[in-house]
């Protein structure tokens, strides 16, 4: 376990090193926010002064070293355009994104596993085939396109649900969440469905494949031979084995759910981290970009750690700490 944590930490330090360097070099190559943001009437001297006030006139290496020194002291710098600590900005937006991602994942799991089980238990029935065809469709529809259609249909044509925004939030365990109030929930539904669709298909397919595979296993036959009821065979013996790949994939994909939230957030005007990062890229707000990457990497690592722990709980054969081949 310690070896495992250390391995992950080393890896993430590397990721961060590489990514921050890339971002630094990239942003440096493109330009600086002053060119975009300064009042057009300003003269060359004003521009130069503003650039140097932000320290953007120094050589790349020097800027990077300054950043490293401050980062090691726990300071990732202030956002150029918000003038507040970049990390604070990100953390402020994180609950919204996490809520969306969690809602989507929950939706995907709650629907995906039963549907996948159904399709796996009755692969030749029309329902099974329908579920599978549906999952291919869900797999194929680009997120942004579905988002548009959802807005078109449910917000504009039918007017059942709000088209965008987060709605009122309530405090829950110290964070602002929207799922506790009815209006907040209504705002959450469409984006969550939108974001869930791809993962839903993925989980359906995984579950189905897992079920079909498990059904062929001797241990399932042996469980039947013990005289267990069908419910127990499927609900315990099959399900527990399926959960292993499903949990792994859900965990590993959680990072990408958060990342894809960028698309959903921009369509539904959801005030999360994704929207922030796009804006920050547009104005070259480097501290925010770097802080965002840091947070994502940290989240991904945390999730991986959690996945590994859950994995070892679900699958006693796995011992945490062994290098995965």
């Amino acid at each position, binding site marked *: 376990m310690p070896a495992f944590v250390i391995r992950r930490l080393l890896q993430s330090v590397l990721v961060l090193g590489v990514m921050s360097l890339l971002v630094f070099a990239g942003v440096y190559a493109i330009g600086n926010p002053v060119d975009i943001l300064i009042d*057009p009437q300003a003269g060359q001297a004003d521009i130069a002064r503003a650039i140097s006030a932000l320290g953007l006139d120094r050589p790349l290496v020097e800027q990077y070293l300054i950043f490293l020194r401050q980062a090691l002291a726990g300071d990732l710098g202030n956002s150029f355009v918000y003038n507040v600590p970049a990390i604070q900005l990100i953390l402020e937006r994180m609950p919204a994104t996490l809520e969306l991602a969690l809602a989507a994942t929950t939706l995907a799991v709650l629907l995906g596993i039963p549907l996948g089980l159904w399709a796996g238990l009755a692969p030749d029935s029309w329902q099974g085939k329908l579920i599978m065809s549906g999952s291919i469709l869900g797999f194929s529809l680009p997120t942004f396109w579905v988002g548009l259609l959802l807005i078109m249909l449910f917000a504009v044509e039918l007017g059942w649900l709000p088209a*965008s*925004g987060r709605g009122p939030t309530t405090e829950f365990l110290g964070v602002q969440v929207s799922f506790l109030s009815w209006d907040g929930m209504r705002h959450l539904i469409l984006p969550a469905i939108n974001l869930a669709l791809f993962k839903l298909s993925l989980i359906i397919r995984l579950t189905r494949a897992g079920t079909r595979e498990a059904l062929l296993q001797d241990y399932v036959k042996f469980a039947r031979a013990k005289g267990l009821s069908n419910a127990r065979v499927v609900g315990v013996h099959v399900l527990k084995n399926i959960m292993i790949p499903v949990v792994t994939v859900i965990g590993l994909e959680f990072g990408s759910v958060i990342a894809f939230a960028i698309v959903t957030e921009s369509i539904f005007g959801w005030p999360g981290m994704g929207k922030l990062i796009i804006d920050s890229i547009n104005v070259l707000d480097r501290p925010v970009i770097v802080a965002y990457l840091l947070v994502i990497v940290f989240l991904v690592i945390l999730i991986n750690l959690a996945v590994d722990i859950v994995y070892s709980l679900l699958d006693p054969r796995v011992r945490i700490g062994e290098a995965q081949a």
Partner: protein
Amino acid sequence: VAATAAELRIGLGADVTSLDPHFLNVAPNNNAAWQVYDALTHVDANARLIPGLAVSWRAVDSTTWEFKLRKDVKFHDGSAFSAEDVIFSLERPATLSASPGPFTGFVKPIVAKKIIDPWTLQLKTAAPYAMLPYDLNSIFIVSKKAASGASTEDFNSGKAAIGTGPYKLSRFARGDRIELARNDSYWGAQNGKLAPWDKVTLRILPADTARIAALLAGDVDAIENIPTADLTRLKANAKFRLEQKVSWRTLFLHLDQYRDHPPHLSDKSGKPLAKNPFKDVRVRMAMSKAINRRAIVERVMEGNAIEAGNLVSPPVFGHVAALKPETYDPKAAKDLLAEAGYPDGFALTLYAPNNRYVNDEQLAQTVAQMLARVGILTRVETLPASVYFGKARAGEFSFALLGWGSFSGDLALRALLATPNAAKGYGAWNWGHYSNPKADGLLEQGFATLDEKKREALAREAATLALKDVPVILLHHQLASWAMRKEIAYEARTDEYTFARDFRRR
């Protein structure tokens, strides 16, 4: 859900990054600040200067401006407003060094400040400077007491956000909304009547679809900056009202007139041209005649623009009514090209930003279509603004789209068409390096003239002189637009700002 009688919800089209009114000089932030603060001078719906916290101003001598301040004005915290607060506010921008878009430019000309009495203030400039009252329109007046030593966070939290404006800040949820409460002791109550809204929520909805959908779904009562695609439909919808007015932003194309071999310019087979065709006024004129501005206005902008014959739009100071938009005449354009020695045209690349102006990408493509019709093979390359402006300034383009908003014609001329001179601050955005010493002279004369009428005449003269050379290809003036529920009304503004206090119930 309809709003309660006293609540107004407005969908804003851009993110507000900070409520510190002196930190970042960008329109969305200023728009938010205008709800809470006042400046010494205000502008009316036509972008003309009117009194704000200063009731009057005059030039005492050629380098001294005197401002008479409004009495009995109270800050939101109840403290009285005085010249001390003005001095503090004028000095504060320079203390915020970490800004990529500082306000310092507006106070830079001021070399000395003098308080005559609590409601009289004198400001000295080094040289005669006519624009000072205009510049001071951009400096928000904050309470010295509340804002001393305050950080951006103090403003965002509302602690330091104490202004004299029509609304008090209740809550700022970054990236989501700004909640405001009416300032019941606002000095600017019109005819003794305060704005009808006790409470105003500014929802931040930068995505066009999100904003329009929010209006259609009734999430907000009004929105600004209507996507052109939805104008027709909104107009046809009896439940909503649309308000439009010509905005101060003009779109035009810069042409490289200083290099002999500008980049991205060649003959149609890709071989370099012998000389720079843009240096020939006939070519520039031909290109201008090739543009069907009416098609642009009707098709690309869906009526949300008017054809441009001036650098500034009609209501703006210095607009020359006599300068009409160039008429569309492809035949004449071809003839002119042939006359200039390019019967087969040539090839060029038109650069444009893709996230800066309304329909900028579409506009660039349409221009390319039209130039192609007269034989100028036009490729289009669009870039995000973050990349675009840096490259443009570095001279990487020879034919590029720019949009410009200005309070006055002479300011626009100075930035866009005056001979580049970094020391004087002339021609900072003159990407094509057009140069007309006579026009430059008129401009200089104008800026030293403190008489408004004379100054405007000089500005008009300079504009007429310069635009005769077709130094840029003018396209259109944008319209600013608002849409709202039928029951509300808003007087559309040239400066594109959305003032919550100006929404009225019908």
